[in-house]
């Protein structure tokens, strides 16, 4: 464990040094993240100009939900996205060989090598959106509630990480994951919707339970709005463990298919 912590810290140090070398790049990317967060919040604002409620959620409850989704997404982008995005291209080009020669588990090495400090900076803004929405709703959560909220957000990051690794692992079979990794963002759209909006049996089963991207954000947001729900927290933890196990399994099965440079 300590060995992996050391490797991760070395990677983090490298990423931060690199960011300090390309300060302009860091500024542009921070702006990119900020713009995309604003796009989501602006969309809510426009829709709520024409309606008072979406599936029983008021405007600021919705902002809280979207803020939670953005927080999870920023952590995912900050800690894993660059590495996982490159993974698809490396599999295609054969540069993935590099990770096979690294002193650690291939999946860990390939998915944690790069940090994106710009996303991590914006996670502060996403947290600010959550705090602002909570204030507007007159919520006053206790320390335990905030701690459980944090735990649920971590579970959410693990679930999204697993789904992302799974979708990129397709490249082991298709050679090119070009365009496929982007489709992952489609799933993020569901995480910004209230669970009660899923009225059909098929959509509930698929998006709420089979792909738990809706619960991942709704559960922590509801925790702040309605109070403790340990059953939901336990379910989220079990889902995180389950999805991670599937991702590890599929990644390693895919790795057997890896044939180095393909073109």
């Amino acid at each position, binding site marked *: 464990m300590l060995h992996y912590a050391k490797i991760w810290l070395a990677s983090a140090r490298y990423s931060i040094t690199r960011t300090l070398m390309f300060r302009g790049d860091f500024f542009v*990317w921070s702006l990119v993240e900020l713009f995309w967060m604003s796009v989501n919040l602006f969309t809510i604002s426009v829709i709520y100009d024409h*309606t008072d409620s979406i599936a029983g959620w008021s405007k600021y409850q919705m902002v809280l939900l979207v803020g939670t989704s953005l927080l999870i997404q920023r952590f995912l982008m900050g800690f894993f996205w660059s590495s996982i995005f490159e993974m698809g291209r490396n599999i295609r080009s054969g540069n993935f060989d590099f990770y096979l020669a690294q002193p650690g588990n291939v999946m860990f090495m390939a998915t944690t090598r790069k940090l994106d400090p710009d996303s991590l900076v914006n996670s502060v803004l996403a947290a600010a959106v959550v705090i602002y929405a909570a204030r507007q709703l007159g919520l006053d959560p206790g320390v335990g509630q905030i701690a459980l909220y944090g735990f649920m957000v971590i579970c959410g990051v693990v679930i999204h990480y697993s789904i992302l690794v799974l979708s990129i692992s397709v490249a082991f079979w298709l050679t090119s994951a070009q365009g496929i990794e982007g489709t992952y963002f*489609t799933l993020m*759209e569901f995480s910004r919707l209230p669970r009660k909006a*899923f009225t059909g049996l098929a959509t509930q089963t698929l998006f709420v339970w089979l792909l738990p991207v809706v619960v991942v954000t709704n559960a922590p947001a509801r925790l702040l709005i309605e109070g403790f729900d340990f059953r939901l927290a336990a379910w989220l933890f079990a889902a995180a463990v389950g999805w991670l196990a599937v991702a590890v399994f599929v990644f390693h099965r895919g790795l057997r298919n890896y044939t180095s440079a393909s073109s």
Partner: protein
Amino acid sequence: MFAPLNKYRQAFLVGLQSNLVYRVNFAVRGFFSLFHLAAVVILWSAAFAGRSDLGGFTLNQTITYFVTLLILQFFISAFNEDYQISEDIRNGLINQFLLKPINYFAYRFSIFVAARLVTGMLVILPLLIALPVLAQYLAFPRDFTVLLLGLPAMAMSAMIQFSIAYCFGMLTFWFLEIQGFVILSMALETVLGGQMFPLDLLPAWAYSVAKCLPFYYQMYFPAAIFTGRLTDTAAIFQGYLIQACWVGVLLWINHLLWTRGLRRHTAVGG
């Protein structure tokens, strides 16, 4: 007379072949876009609950708008053309075009048309599969003139889409990394192109401002014509005019960036 165009026909055919190689990827992408449609249906159905219209349009008209947007995206959007151009410049692949009687813009545009033809056809398949479910939400105008009015707007939208991507690709002459600019612009295009919500839901003043920007003509304008959100013929012809002006402006910027960029370009090796 058409002999000089033959080389672009060949580029188009090569583009067709190379894009067909990745047909599975595009098909998967098309399939995943159904998830986006599902999210749209769920969100807007919840927003419309208990009301017959929102901003003067029904739920079915709104869903039809998003379905049309999806089809347009696969037929006219620039997917990764900016990156391809950027790679050509960065890796020195454009050197060969400097020595041959080939216009780089026309070459790239031929490949873009081929690529969109492939992706456009491939998105039809998942949409046909989803049709039994989607059909209840579709409310296309029965008047076929919208098709005639929408096609020129769609063609010019494709030009705007490609020209913007080409501009970003050209930035590689000045910047090593353009990805940040591209995604920054994508955020603007997504909102002001009407991909998050129909632009007519914006407050009147914001809608008037949006109509002056090129993003409005990238996606919203043809989609609004095809779906009957924009029916006033005078307004449509006025839109054509502004759209044509943006095409002209963007082509001029493309040319300027190419000529200025080449002055900075250093060709190394053979």
